[in-house]
Protein backbone atom coordinates (compact mmCIF):
# COMPACT_ATOMS: atom_id res chain seq x y z
CA UNK A 1 0.00 0.00 0.00
CA UNK A 2 2.95 2.31 0.63
CA UNK A 3 3.98 2.70 -3.04
CA UNK A 4 0.50 3.68 -4.13
CA UNK A 5 0.27 6.17 -1.27
CA UNK A 6 3.54 7.84 -2.28
CA UNK A 7 2.33 8.24 -5.85
CA UNK A 8 -0.98 9.64 -4.69
CA UNK A 9 0.66 12.17 -2.42
CA UNK A 10 3.13 13.43 -5.04
CA UNK A 11 0.79 15.83 -6.91
CA UNK A 12 -0.43 17.18 -3.57
CA UNK A 13 3.16 17.86 -2.57
CA UNK A 14 3.80 19.52 -5.92
CA UNK A 15 0.88 21.93 -5.44
CA UNK A 16 1.47 22.76 -1.76
CA UNK A 17 5.22 23.22 -2.20
CA UNK A 18 5.19 24.83 -5.64
CA UNK A 19 2.13 27.04 -5.28
CA UNK A 20 2.09 27.76 -1.55
CA UNK A 21 5.39 27.19 0.25
CA UNK A 22 7.70 28.57 -2.47
CA UNK A 23 5.61 31.74 -3.07
CA UNK A 24 5.62 32.37 0.69
CA UNK A 25 9.41 31.93 0.79
CA UNK A 26 9.75 34.40 -2.08
CA UNK A 27 7.72 36.93 -0.10
CA UNK A 28 10.01 36.30 2.90
CA UNK A 29 13.05 36.97 0.72
CA UNK A 30 11.52 40.06 -0.91
CA UNK A 31 10.67 41.53 2.49
CA UNK A 32 14.39 41.65 3.24
CA UNK A 33 15.39 43.27 -0.06
CA UNK A 34 15.28 46.86 -1.29
CA UNK A 35 12.99 48.47 -3.81
CA UNK A 36 14.47 48.62 -7.31
CA UNK A 37 14.48 51.78 -9.45
CA UNK A 38 11.62 50.49 -11.65
CA UNK A 39 9.57 48.95 -8.87
CA UNK A 40 11.21 45.51 -8.78
CA UNK A 41 13.42 44.21 -5.99
CA UNK A 42 17.13 44.56 -5.68
CA UNK A 43 19.97 44.06 -3.20
CA UNK A 44 21.22 45.12 -0.60
CA UNK A 45 19.53 42.97 2.01
CA UNK A 46 17.99 45.09 4.72
CA UNK A 47 15.61 45.18 7.67
CA UNK A 48 14.46 48.64 6.62
CA UNK A 49 11.02 47.38 5.44
CA UNK A 50 10.14 45.98 8.84
CA UNK A 51 11.26 49.15 10.61
CA UNK A 52 9.09 51.27 8.29
CA UNK A 53 5.99 49.55 9.67
CA UNK A 54 6.53 51.52 12.89
CA UNK A 55 6.02 54.78 11.02
CA UNK A 56 2.96 56.48 12.68
CA UNK A 57 1.16 56.44 9.31
CA UNK A 58 1.30 52.65 9.14
CA UNK A 59 0.69 52.15 12.84
CA UNK A 60 -2.58 54.06 12.38
CA UNK A 61 -3.60 51.61 9.66
CA UNK A 62 -2.64 48.66 11.83
CA UNK A 63 -4.59 50.02 14.80
CA UNK A 64 -7.62 50.74 12.59
CA UNK A 65 -7.58 47.17 11.28
CA UNK A 66 -7.44 45.80 14.81
CA UNK A 67 -10.26 47.89 16.25
CA UNK A 68 -12.55 47.52 13.23
CA UNK A 69 -12.02 43.73 13.37
CA UNK A 70 -12.64 43.70 17.14
CA UNK A 71 -15.87 45.69 16.86
CA UNK A 72 -17.08 43.53 13.95
CA UNK A 73 -16.30 40.38 15.94
CA UNK A 74 -18.20 41.72 18.96
CA UNK A 75 -21.24 42.46 16.80
CA UNK A 76 -21.03 38.99 15.24
CA UNK A 77 -20.98 37.42 18.70
CA UNK A 78 -23.91 39.52 19.87
CA UNK A 79 -25.98 38.80 16.77
CA UNK A 80 -24.78 35.23 16.27
CA UNK A 81 -25.32 33.86 19.76
CA UNK A 82 -29.14 34.08 19.88
CA UNK A 83 -29.30 32.83 16.28
CA UNK A 84 -27.13 29.81 17.13
CA UNK A 85 -29.27 29.18 20.20
CA UNK A 86 -32.40 29.29 18.06
CA UNK A 87 -30.93 26.85 15.52
CA UNK A 88 -29.68 24.49 18.25
CA UNK A 89 -33.19 24.35 19.73
CA UNK A 90 -35.05 23.96 16.46
CA UNK A 91 -35.38 20.20 16.92
CA UNK A 92 -35.81 18.26 13.68
CA UNK A 93 -35.33 21.29 11.49
CA UNK A 94 -31.90 22.14 12.92
CA UNK A 95 -30.00 21.16 9.76
CA UNK A 96 -32.35 23.18 7.59
CA UNK A 97 -31.97 26.33 9.72
CA UNK A 98 -28.20 25.89 9.93
CA UNK A 99 -27.96 25.50 6.15
CA UNK A 100 -30.05 28.65 5.75
CA UNK A 101 -27.39 30.49 7.76
CA UNK A 102 -24.58 29.02 5.70
CA UNK A 103 -26.14 29.38 2.24
CA UNK A 104 -25.45 33.10 1.74
CA UNK A 105 -21.87 32.45 2.73
CA UNK A 106 -21.40 30.21 -0.29
CA UNK A 107 -22.78 32.76 -2.71
CA UNK A 108 -20.43 35.43 -3.98
CA UNK A 109 -18.77 37.56 -1.30
CA UNK A 110 -18.29 40.32 -3.85
CA UNK A 111 -22.00 40.36 -4.71
CA UNK A 112 -22.99 40.41 -1.04
CA UNK A 113 -20.72 43.41 -0.56
CA UNK A 114 -22.16 45.08 -3.65
CA UNK A 115 -25.66 44.53 -2.24
CA UNK A 116 -24.75 46.83 0.66
CA UNK A 117 -23.30 49.44 -1.71
CA UNK A 118 -26.61 49.32 -3.51
CA UNK A 119 -28.55 49.83 -0.26
CA UNK A 120 -26.32 52.41 1.41
CA UNK A 121 -25.24 54.84 -1.29
CA UNK A 122 -26.67 58.35 -1.70
CA UNK A 123 -29.18 57.26 -4.33
CA UNK A 124 -29.57 53.86 -2.68
CA UNK A 125 -32.74 52.31 -1.37
CA UNK A 126 -32.36 53.36 2.28
CA UNK A 127 -31.74 57.01 1.44
CA UNK A 128 -34.51 57.01 -1.15
CA UNK A 129 -36.99 55.64 1.38
CA UNK A 130 -35.85 58.05 4.11
CA UNK A 131 -36.24 61.01 1.77
CA UNK A 132 -39.60 59.84 0.48
CA UNK A 133 -40.81 59.69 4.08
CA UNK A 134 -39.35 63.17 4.66
CA UNK A 135 -37.29 61.84 7.53
CA UNK A 136 -34.23 63.50 6.06
CA UNK A 137 -33.77 66.34 3.62
CA UNK A 138 -30.44 65.41 2.09
CA UNK A 139 -29.13 61.85 1.65
CA UNK A 140 -27.34 60.57 4.75
CA UNK A 141 -23.67 59.66 4.24
CA UNK A 142 -24.17 55.94 4.91
CA UNK A 143 -21.53 54.59 2.56
CA UNK A 144 -17.75 55.09 2.51
CA UNK A 145 -17.08 55.21 6.24
CA UNK A 146 -15.97 52.92 9.07
CA UNK A 147 -19.56 52.05 9.97
CA UNK A 148 -20.27 50.73 6.48
CA UNK A 149 -17.09 48.63 6.61
CA UNK A 150 -18.09 47.13 9.98
CA UNK A 151 -21.58 46.39 8.67
CA UNK A 152 -20.10 44.68 5.62
CA UNK A 153 -17.73 42.59 7.73
CA UNK A 154 -20.49 41.54 10.16
CA UNK A 155 -22.74 40.61 7.25
CA UNK A 156 -19.96 38.70 5.52
CA UNK A 157 -18.65 36.70 8.46
CA UNK A 158 -21.72 36.11 10.67
CA UNK A 159 -21.99 32.48 9.46
CA UNK A 160 -18.44 31.86 10.77
CA UNK A 161 -19.66 32.82 14.24
CA UNK A 162 -22.88 30.83 14.16
CA UNK A 163 -21.30 27.55 13.04
CA UNK A 164 -18.97 26.90 16.04
CA UNK A 165 -21.52 28.37 18.48
CA UNK A 166 -24.13 26.00 17.17
CA UNK A 167 -21.72 23.08 17.50
CA UNK A 168 -21.19 23.76 21.23
CA UNK A 169 -24.80 24.67 22.02
CA UNK A 170 -26.09 21.56 20.29
CA UNK A 171 -23.94 19.35 22.53
CA UNK A 172 -25.17 21.07 25.69
CA UNK A 173 -26.85 18.53 27.97
CA UNK A 174 -30.56 19.46 28.25
CA UNK A 175 -30.57 17.91 31.75
CA UNK A 176 -28.46 20.84 32.97
CA UNK A 177 -31.12 23.27 31.80
CA UNK A 178 -33.83 21.23 33.49
CA UNK A 179 -31.78 21.19 36.67
CA UNK A 180 -31.39 24.97 36.59
CA UNK A 181 -35.11 25.37 36.06
CA UNK A 182 -35.99 22.91 38.85
CA UNK A 183 -33.74 24.85 41.18
CA UNK A 184 -35.78 27.96 40.43
CA UNK A 185 -33.65 29.82 37.88
CA UNK A 186 -35.54 31.96 35.38
CA UNK A 187 -34.74 31.46 31.66
CA UNK A 188 -32.53 34.58 31.68
CA UNK A 189 -30.63 33.47 34.77
CA UNK A 190 -30.14 30.02 33.19
CA UNK A 191 -28.84 31.71 30.05
CA UNK A 192 -26.27 33.79 31.93
CA UNK A 193 -25.16 31.29 34.54
CA UNK A 194 -25.39 27.99 32.66
CA UNK A 195 -25.55 28.33 28.88
CA UNK A 196 -23.11 31.21 28.34
CA UNK A 197 -20.29 29.82 30.55
CA UNK A 198 -20.65 26.36 29.00
CA UNK A 199 -20.42 27.69 25.45
CA UNK A 200 -17.14 29.54 26.03
CA UNK A 201 -15.20 27.24 23.70
CA UNK A 202 -17.64 27.88 20.87
CA UNK A 203 -17.48 31.61 21.48
CA UNK A 204 -13.69 31.62 21.38
CA UNK A 205 -13.65 29.57 18.19
CA UNK A 206 -16.28 31.80 16.59
CA UNK A 207 -14.50 35.02 17.56
CA UNK A 208 -11.26 33.67 16.12
CA UNK A 209 -12.94 32.55 12.90
CA UNK A 210 -14.43 36.03 12.45
CA UNK A 211 -11.52 38.14 13.71
CA UNK A 212 -8.92 36.48 11.46
CA UNK A 213 -10.59 37.14 8.10
CA UNK A 214 -11.62 40.64 9.28
CA UNK A 215 -8.01 41.48 10.06
CA UNK A 216 -6.95 40.50 6.56
CA UNK A 217 -10.02 41.99 4.86
CA UNK A 218 -9.41 43.73 1.58
CA UNK A 219 -12.59 43.81 -0.48
CA UNK A 220 -14.95 45.15 2.20
CA UNK A 221 -12.88 48.21 3.20
CA UNK A 222 -12.09 48.81 -0.45
CA UNK A 223 -15.71 48.86 -1.66
CA UNK A 224 -17.66 49.99 1.43
CA UNK A 225 -14.91 52.21 2.83
CA UNK A 226 -14.33 53.76 -0.57
CA UNK A 227 -10.60 54.20 -0.07
CA UNK A 228 -11.13 56.20 3.12
CA UNK A 229 -10.99 53.24 5.48
CA UNK A 230 -7.56 51.79 4.74
CA UNK A 231 -6.90 48.46 6.48
CA UNK A 232 -3.80 46.23 6.36
CA UNK A 233 -5.14 44.31 3.36
CA UNK A 234 -5.54 47.52 1.38
CA UNK A 235 -2.05 48.63 2.34
CA UNK A 236 -0.61 45.34 1.02
CA UNK A 237 -2.58 45.59 -2.21
CA UNK A 238 -1.53 49.20 -2.69
CA UNK A 239 2.16 48.43 -2.20
CA UNK A 240 2.01 45.65 -4.79
CA UNK A 241 0.06 47.64 -7.39
CA UNK A 242 -0.01 51.46 -7.30
CA UNK A 243 3.00 52.16 -5.07
CA UNK A 244 5.04 49.30 -6.55
CA UNK A 245 7.06 48.87 -3.38
CA UNK A 246 7.18 45.08 -3.26
CA UNK A 247 9.70 44.73 -0.43
CA UNK A 248 7.59 46.85 1.91
CA UNK A 249 4.38 45.13 0.74
CA UNK A 250 6.02 41.77 1.46
CA UNK A 251 7.06 42.87 4.96
CA UNK A 252 3.50 44.02 5.74
CA UNK A 253 2.07 40.74 4.34
CA UNK A 254 4.33 38.71 6.59
CA UNK A 255 3.49 40.81 9.63
CA UNK A 256 -0.21 40.25 8.91
CA UNK A 257 0.35 36.51 8.62
CA UNK A 258 2.43 36.45 11.83
CA UNK A 259 -0.31 38.39 13.62
CA UNK A 260 -2.93 35.87 12.49
CA UNK A 261 -0.86 32.83 13.44
CA UNK A 262 0.26 34.34 16.74
CA UNK A 263 -3.33 35.02 17.71
CA UNK A 264 -4.32 31.50 16.77
CA UNK A 265 -1.47 30.07 18.84
CA UNK A 266 -2.38 32.22 21.82
CA UNK A 267 -6.08 31.32 21.85
CA UNK A 268 -5.56 27.68 20.87
CA UNK A 269 -3.19 27.19 23.80
CA UNK A 270 -5.75 28.56 26.22
CA UNK A 271 -8.59 26.48 24.84
CA UNK A 272 -7.37 22.92 24.51
CA UNK A 273 -9.87 21.38 22.13
CA UNK A 274 -10.53 24.37 19.94
CA UNK A 275 -11.28 23.81 16.24
Amino acid sequence: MQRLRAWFLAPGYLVTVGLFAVPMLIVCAYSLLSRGPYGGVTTPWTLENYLRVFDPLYLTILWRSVWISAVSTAFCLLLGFPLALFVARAGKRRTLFLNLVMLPFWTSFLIRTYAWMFLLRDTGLINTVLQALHLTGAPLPLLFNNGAVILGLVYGYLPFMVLPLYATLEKLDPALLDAAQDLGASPWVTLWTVIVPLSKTGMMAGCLLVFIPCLGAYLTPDLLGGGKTVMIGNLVQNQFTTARDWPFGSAVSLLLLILVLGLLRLVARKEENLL
Partner: protein
Amino acid sequence: MKRFLPLYAVAAYAFLYLPLLVLSMFSFNSSRFSVWEGFTLKWYGEVFGNENLLEATINSLTIGLVCTAIATAVGTLAGYAIWKRKSSFITNSLYLSLLTPEIVTGVSLLAFFQFVFRFLSVPLGMHTVILAHVSFCLAYVVIVILARLRTFDKALEEASMDLGANEWQTFWYVTVPAMLPGIAAAALLCFTVSFDDYVITSLVAGVDSETLPMVIYSMARKGVSPAVNALSAMITVALGVFVLLAGRMERK
Protein backbone atom coordinates in the same frame (compact mmCIF):
# COMPACT_ATOMS: atom_id res chain seq x y z
CA MET B 1 -36.97 33.58 25.89
CA LYS B 2 -39.31 31.13 24.16
CA ARG B 3 -41.01 34.03 22.44
CA PHE B 4 -37.94 36.14 21.94
CA LEU B 5 -35.81 33.58 20.08
CA PRO B 6 -38.12 32.86 17.10
CA LEU B 7 -38.81 36.58 16.69
CA TYR B 8 -35.11 37.29 16.78
CA ALA B 9 -34.43 34.48 14.29
CA VAL B 10 -36.88 36.01 11.80
CA ALA B 11 -35.01 39.32 12.04
CA ALA B 12 -31.62 37.61 11.71
CA TYR B 13 -32.64 35.65 8.62
CA ALA B 14 -34.08 38.84 7.16
CA PHE B 15 -30.71 40.52 7.76
CA LEU B 16 -28.98 37.67 5.93
CA TYR B 17 -31.34 37.44 2.97
CA LEU B 18 -33.02 40.83 2.45
CA PRO B 19 -30.01 42.62 0.92
CA LEU B 20 -29.71 39.91 -1.74
CA LEU B 21 -33.48 39.82 -2.34
CA VAL B 22 -33.75 43.59 -2.68
CA LEU B 23 -30.73 43.62 -4.97
CA SER B 24 -32.37 41.02 -7.20
CA MET B 25 -35.74 42.73 -7.09
CA PHE B 26 -34.35 45.99 -8.39
CA SER B 27 -32.81 44.23 -11.38
CA PHE B 28 -36.39 44.20 -12.73
CA ASN B 29 -36.88 47.92 -12.13
CA SER B 30 -37.20 50.10 -15.23
CA SER B 31 -35.61 53.11 -13.50
CA ARG B 32 -31.87 53.42 -12.98
CA PHE B 33 -32.53 54.67 -9.48
CA SER B 34 -33.91 53.02 -6.38
CA VAL B 35 -37.47 54.13 -7.09
CA TRP B 36 -39.78 51.46 -8.41
CA GLU B 37 -41.11 52.56 -11.81
CA GLY B 38 -42.29 49.32 -13.32
CA PHE B 39 -41.23 45.86 -14.43
CA THR B 40 -38.65 45.43 -17.14
CA LEU B 41 -36.23 42.83 -18.45
CA LYS B 42 -34.07 45.37 -20.26
CA TRP B 43 -31.16 45.08 -17.79
CA TYR B 44 -31.04 41.35 -18.44
CA GLY B 45 -31.00 42.20 -22.14
CA GLU B 46 -28.09 44.53 -21.49
CA VAL B 47 -26.20 41.79 -19.67
CA PHE B 48 -26.69 39.30 -22.48
CA GLY B 49 -25.86 41.88 -25.14
CA ASN B 50 -22.56 42.86 -23.49
CA GLU B 51 -19.62 41.23 -25.29
CA ASN B 52 -17.19 42.12 -22.51
CA LEU B 53 -19.37 40.24 -20.05
CA LEU B 54 -19.72 37.28 -22.39
CA GLU B 55 -15.95 37.01 -22.64
CA ALA B 56 -15.56 37.30 -18.87
CA THR B 57 -18.18 34.58 -18.38
CA ILE B 58 -16.35 32.27 -20.75
CA ASN B 59 -13.07 33.01 -18.93
CA SER B 60 -14.65 32.35 -15.53
CA LEU B 61 -16.19 29.08 -16.71
CA THR B 62 -12.96 27.91 -18.33
CA ILE B 63 -10.90 28.75 -15.25
CA GLY B 64 -13.49 27.18 -12.96
CA LEU B 65 -13.73 23.95 -14.94
CA VAL B 66 -9.99 23.45 -15.49
CA CYS B 67 -9.19 24.37 -11.87
CA THR B 68 -11.94 22.04 -10.61
CA ALA B 69 -10.66 19.14 -12.71
CA ILE B 70 -7.06 19.57 -11.50
CA ALA B 71 -7.81 20.41 -7.85
CA THR B 72 -10.38 17.63 -7.47
CA ALA B 73 -8.04 15.01 -8.93
CA VAL B 74 -5.03 16.14 -6.90
CA GLY B 75 -7.10 16.65 -3.74
CA THR B 76 -8.88 13.30 -3.96
CA LEU B 77 -5.60 11.42 -4.29
CA ALA B 78 -3.97 13.46 -1.52
CA GLY B 79 -7.01 13.08 0.75
CA TYR B 80 -7.00 9.32 0.25
CA ALA B 81 -3.25 9.14 0.98
CA ILE B 82 -3.64 11.25 4.12
CA TRP B 83 -6.50 9.03 5.27
CA LYS B 84 -4.23 5.99 4.83
CA ARG B 85 -1.51 7.56 6.91
CA LYS B 86 -1.16 11.11 8.18
CA SER B 87 1.06 13.54 6.32
CA SER B 88 1.63 16.43 8.68
CA PHE B 89 3.43 18.51 6.04
CA ILE B 90 0.51 18.55 3.61
CA THR B 91 -2.16 18.83 6.33
CA ASN B 92 -0.39 21.75 7.98
CA SER B 93 0.28 23.50 4.67
CA LEU B 94 -3.38 23.19 3.72
CA TYR B 95 -4.59 24.57 7.07
CA LEU B 96 -2.07 27.38 6.78
CA SER B 97 -3.30 28.17 3.27
CA LEU B 98 -6.87 28.38 4.60
CA LEU B 99 -5.78 30.76 7.38
CA THR B 100 -3.64 32.99 5.18
CA PRO B 101 -5.53 36.17 4.28
CA GLU B 102 -6.52 36.12 0.61
CA ILE B 103 -4.61 39.28 -0.13
CA VAL B 104 -1.39 37.70 1.20
CA THR B 105 -1.94 34.55 -0.87
CA GLY B 106 -2.57 36.81 -3.84
CA VAL B 107 0.59 38.89 -3.58
CA SER B 108 2.74 35.82 -2.83
CA LEU B 109 1.47 34.14 -5.99
CA LEU B 110 1.97 37.36 -7.95
CA ALA B 111 5.56 37.60 -6.71
CA PHE B 112 6.09 33.91 -7.53
CA PHE B 113 4.68 34.14 -11.05
CA GLN B 114 6.66 37.29 -11.81
CA PHE B 115 9.79 35.56 -10.51
CA VAL B 116 9.31 32.32 -12.45
CA PHE B 117 7.85 33.68 -15.63
CA ARG B 118 10.44 36.40 -15.93
CA PHE B 119 12.91 33.63 -16.71
CA LEU B 120 10.51 32.03 -19.15
CA SER B 121 9.29 35.43 -20.42
CA VAL B 122 5.66 34.29 -20.21
CA PRO B 123 3.18 37.04 -19.27
CA LEU B 124 0.41 36.67 -16.67
CA GLY B 125 -2.79 35.18 -18.07
CA MET B 126 -5.27 32.34 -17.89
CA HIS B 127 -2.59 29.84 -16.87
CA THR B 128 -1.49 31.87 -13.84
CA VAL B 129 -5.10 32.36 -12.73
CA ILE B 130 -5.78 28.61 -13.05
CA LEU B 131 -2.65 27.72 -11.06
CA ALA B 132 -3.57 30.24 -8.35
CA HIS B 133 -7.09 28.81 -8.12
CA VAL B 134 -5.79 25.24 -7.85
CA SER B 135 -3.59 26.43 -5.00
CA PHE B 136 -6.40 27.82 -2.84
CA CYS B 137 -9.07 25.26 -3.84
CA LEU B 138 -7.01 22.23 -2.85
CA ALA B 139 -7.66 22.60 0.89
CA TYR B 140 -11.45 22.57 0.36
CA VAL B 141 -11.27 19.39 -1.73
CA VAL B 142 -9.08 17.54 0.79
CA ILE B 143 -11.37 18.52 3.69
CA VAL B 144 -14.50 17.23 1.91
CA ILE B 145 -12.77 14.00 0.83
CA LEU B 146 -11.46 13.33 4.34
CA ALA B 147 -14.93 13.93 5.81
CA ARG B 148 -16.32 11.40 3.36
CA LEU B 149 -13.63 8.80 4.09
CA ARG B 150 -14.28 9.06 7.82
CA THR B 151 -17.54 7.17 7.22
CA PHE B 152 -15.84 4.55 5.03
CA ASP B 153 -15.06 1.20 6.64
CA LYS B 154 -11.38 0.25 6.23
CA ALA B 155 -12.38 -3.42 6.49
CA LEU B 156 -13.88 -3.22 2.99
CA GLU B 157 -10.43 -2.55 1.56
CA GLU B 158 -8.94 -5.39 3.59
CA ALA B 159 -11.67 -7.74 2.36
CA SER B 160 -10.95 -6.75 -1.23
CA MET B 161 -7.21 -7.40 -0.78
CA ASP B 162 -7.93 -10.75 0.91
CA LEU B 163 -10.02 -11.74 -2.08
CA GLY B 164 -7.02 -11.19 -4.34
CA ALA B 165 -7.39 -7.68 -5.67
CA ASN B 166 -4.19 -5.61 -5.82
CA GLU B 167 -3.80 -2.13 -4.34
CA TRP B 168 -4.84 -0.35 -7.49
CA GLN B 169 -7.87 -2.56 -8.14
CA THR B 170 -8.96 -2.13 -4.54
CA PHE B 171 -8.68 1.64 -4.84
CA TRP B 172 -10.44 1.82 -8.17
CA TYR B 173 -13.24 -0.73 -7.67
CA VAL B 174 -13.91 -0.44 -3.95
CA THR B 175 -12.78 2.91 -2.52
CA VAL B 176 -13.46 5.29 -5.43
CA PRO B 177 -17.12 4.24 -5.83
CA ALA B 178 -17.60 4.78 -2.10
CA MET B 179 -15.93 8.21 -2.32
CA LEU B 180 -17.88 9.27 -5.41
CA PRO B 181 -20.50 11.48 -3.70
CA GLY B 182 -17.68 13.13 -1.75
CA ILE B 183 -15.70 13.70 -4.94
CA ALA B 184 -18.75 15.25 -6.62
CA ALA B 185 -19.42 17.50 -3.62
CA ALA B 186 -15.76 18.55 -3.53
CA ALA B 187 -15.83 19.38 -7.25
CA LEU B 188 -18.98 21.49 -6.90
CA LEU B 189 -17.56 23.44 -3.94
CA CYS B 190 -14.25 23.86 -5.71
CA PHE B 191 -16.02 25.33 -8.75
CA THR B 192 -18.03 27.68 -6.51
CA VAL B 193 -14.96 28.93 -4.67
CA SER B 194 -13.04 29.40 -7.93
CA PHE B 195 -15.92 31.09 -9.74
CA ASP B 196 -16.37 33.50 -6.84
CA ASP B 197 -12.82 34.66 -6.23
CA TYR B 198 -11.94 38.28 -6.87
CA VAL B 199 -9.02 39.25 -4.61
CA ILE B 200 -6.45 36.67 -5.70
CA THR B 201 -7.64 36.57 -9.31
CA SER B 202 -7.35 40.32 -9.82
CA LEU B 203 -3.71 40.20 -8.71
CA VAL B 204 -2.54 37.35 -10.93
CA ALA B 205 -4.75 37.97 -13.99
CA GLY B 206 -3.34 39.21 -17.27
CA VAL B 207 -4.98 41.23 -20.02
CA ASP B 208 -6.67 38.21 -21.57
CA SER B 209 -8.06 36.72 -18.37
CA GLU B 210 -10.61 39.13 -16.98
CA THR B 211 -13.15 37.12 -14.96
CA LEU B 212 -16.77 37.78 -14.08
CA PRO B 213 -16.05 38.99 -10.50
CA MET B 214 -13.46 41.41 -11.96
CA VAL B 215 -16.10 42.88 -14.28
CA ILE B 216 -18.63 43.14 -11.45
CA TYR B 217 -16.02 44.85 -9.30
CA SER B 218 -15.21 47.49 -11.89
CA MET B 219 -18.91 48.03 -12.66
CA ALA B 220 -19.68 48.37 -8.92
CA ARG B 221 -16.90 50.92 -8.54
CA LYS B 222 -18.12 52.95 -11.50
CA GLY B 223 -21.53 53.31 -9.88
CA VAL B 224 -25.14 52.84 -10.67
CA SER B 225 -26.29 50.31 -13.21
CA PRO B 226 -29.11 47.85 -12.59
CA ALA B 227 -27.29 45.60 -15.07
CA VAL B 228 -24.94 44.72 -12.19
CA ASN B 229 -28.01 43.78 -10.15
CA ALA B 230 -29.26 41.56 -12.98
CA LEU B 231 -25.89 39.88 -13.34
CA SER B 232 -25.56 39.47 -9.57
CA ALA B 233 -29.04 37.98 -9.27
CA MET B 234 -28.29 35.38 -11.93
CA ILE B 235 -24.93 34.43 -10.38
CA THR B 236 -26.41 34.22 -6.87
CA VAL B 237 -29.20 31.92 -8.00
CA ALA B 238 -26.79 29.75 -10.01
CA LEU B 239 -24.31 29.47 -7.14
CA GLY B 240 -27.11 28.81 -4.65
CA VAL B 241 -28.40 25.91 -6.72
CA PHE B 242 -24.85 24.63 -7.04
CA VAL B 243 -24.25 24.65 -3.29
CA LEU B 244 -27.58 22.95 -2.58
CA LEU B 245 -26.60 20.23 -5.08
CA ALA B 246 -23.21 19.87 -3.39
CA GLY B 247 -24.89 19.53 0.02
CA ARG B 248 -27.20 16.85 -1.30
CA MET B 249 -24.24 14.93 -2.78
CA GLU B 250 -22.37 15.07 0.48
CA ARG B 251 -25.27 13.60 2.44
CA LYS B 252 -25.71 10.65 0.07
